[in-house]
């Protein structure tokens, strides 16, 4: 416990150095930080949590629009400590990423990926629980600040038990369905447990950290860290991104009449 407070104190100190006094943070009536609002990551994490040089993307016909931009690793220690079989699975995922990445299929992105999708999310702090709504796929989760319990059932966005440690919102997430962490095929399984930390650095910045434990695929827990930026433009809000229809081509195209018959040697249409 003492160690955790020490870390929190260090982070506050760091925040104070970079952004001014911690007293400048927005606070709610009960004294906890006010981190409500619309946030977004501004980095390459959704392409690859590990370091990434620029390269051709999975769909060459998109030209440079589909190219993968470069970015530094957001992982402490730079690389994910996969077990050998899991490292192979990541390579297979990568090879099939155009159609098998759950993002391409419009599946709810899970935690922590939802946080660093290239689309905004919104935090709502009520008198009791916290809600986080994500533009991508309309995903949403409740962060239970009391009545903590083990996940009653697995889900795409998991079960989130939250608490304040000083000015840091700490959320323990479990009960996640297996999911990918980025477009490079990095992944976790249903035994993953994620510990997230949201620490306000200023009214406009949160430091986001997530520790990812999954003994099924990693040699040891590992952590990512990145800033999140407040969307401050006038009228900023979440819009619909109901993406199932954008995924129908890759998911169901084999079942159009033309394709089904062509598959069986009968050419119709066109």
């Amino acid at each position, binding site marked *: 416990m003492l160690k955790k407070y020490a870390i929190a104190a260090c982070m506050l100190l760091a925040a104070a150095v970079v952004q001014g006094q911690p007293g400048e943070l927005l606070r709610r009536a009960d004294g906890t930080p006010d981190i409500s609002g619309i946030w977004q990551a501004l980095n390459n994490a959704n392409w690859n949590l590990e370091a990434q040089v620029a390269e051709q993307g999975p769909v060459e016909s998109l030209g440079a629009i589909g190219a993968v931009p470069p970015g530094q690793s957001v992982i402490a220690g730079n690389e994910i400590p996969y077990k050998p079989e899991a490292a192979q699975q990541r390579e297979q995922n990568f090879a099939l990423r155009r159609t098998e990445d759950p993002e391409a299929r419009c599946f709810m992105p899970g935690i922590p990926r939802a946080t660093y999708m290239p689309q905004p999310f919104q935090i709502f702090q009520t008198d009791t629980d916290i809600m986080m709504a994500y533009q991508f796929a309309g995903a949403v989760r409740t962060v239970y600040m009391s009545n903590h319990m083990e996940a009653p059932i697995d889900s795409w966005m998991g079960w989130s038990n939250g608490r304040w440690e000083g000015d840091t919102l700490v959320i323990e997430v479990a009960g996640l369905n297996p999911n990918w962490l980025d477009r490079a095929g990095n992944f976790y399984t249903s035994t993953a447990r994620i510990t997230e930390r949201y620490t306000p650095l200023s009214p406009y910045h949160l430091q986001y950290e997530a520790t990812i434990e999954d003994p099924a695929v990693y040699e040891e827990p590992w952590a990512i860290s990145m800033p999140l930026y407040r969307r401050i433009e*006038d009228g900023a809000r979440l819009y619909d991104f109901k993406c199932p229809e954008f995924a129908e081509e890759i*998911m169901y195209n084999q079942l159009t009449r033309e394709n089904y018959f062509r598959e069986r040697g*009968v050419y119709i249409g066109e």
Partner: protein
Amino acid sequence: MSGNRLTKGILAGLGVLLSAHSLGQNETWQMPRTSWGDPLIQGYWTNSTMVPLQRPAAMGTREFYTVEELEENLRREFEDEYGETERGTAADVHYQFDDYLMNRTADSITQNLRTSIIYDPPNGRYPPLTDTAIAAQEEYNTWRSEHQWDSAKTRSLSERCLIWDQEGPPVLPLGYNSTYQFMQTEDFVIMQLEMIHDVRIIPLDGGDPAENSLPQWLGNSRGHWEGDTLVVETTGYSGRTNAPGLRGVPMSSEAHVVERFTRVDENSIDYQFTVTDPNVWQASWSGNYPFREIEGPMFEYACHEGNYGIVNILSGVRLEEFEAYQATGKIGE
């Protein structure tokens, strides 16, 4: 439990029967409030109801049943459902209708004295459609008969997990999973709909819903508190969201919906709404029903992620078509 005893149980439950009239008549009850003083509506709610959206024509302009009539209706409904299959026979194996809380006649949450949710027009039925809407519906039906099996893109919006027809606004009860989680901050009311994990984010600044916005599947909602009533106005529908009760006829860009949420007792929110869309109906129409508090939590409804239905439907149709082709050399009907 014998049918008779169960029926008696139901009727005892009706001792606490609530109607729109009697909601909120407990004088000792005090409005629960948020820390900043707004009425508290945060929690888990259901709008499951036995009341039909449209009134049976025979009821004319009668808005409410008597308690005796409702009891009689429930008894008849129970007996019809209970009598559908014979206990202990193969036909009864599917499920017993009073298992899994599916017997809604036994649940006082779903009862009230209304003869229909719609109370205006006074006959409790949708107003007549406009000529434009009738034409659009005919065009859609023709298109559907020719193309509905073509691909995923020609299936219904709900089958494709894009939007459930009753999501609204106005929010209308569903056959199942009529479950909602409301959250509140000083600046927003957030309504999470279990079906199909949709979130309505309603800013409480009372501004113009269309301001700074884009057309949205659930429209753009803006809310404000009028006394203890949350008034939500919605415009800016996407032009793809089905109008209530209609397929192929969307809420138009001129649609305007006003909803009023009033917590009236410990367990109920009175929900009143008025729908205006001059491109769909010849007049506005209004409805009323209660949301009832239920125990949480609410679970994630991952519609698209587990959409085996659409794959199975299309696979079945394709197989039929291919077998027909092999037999006749023809493709299609």
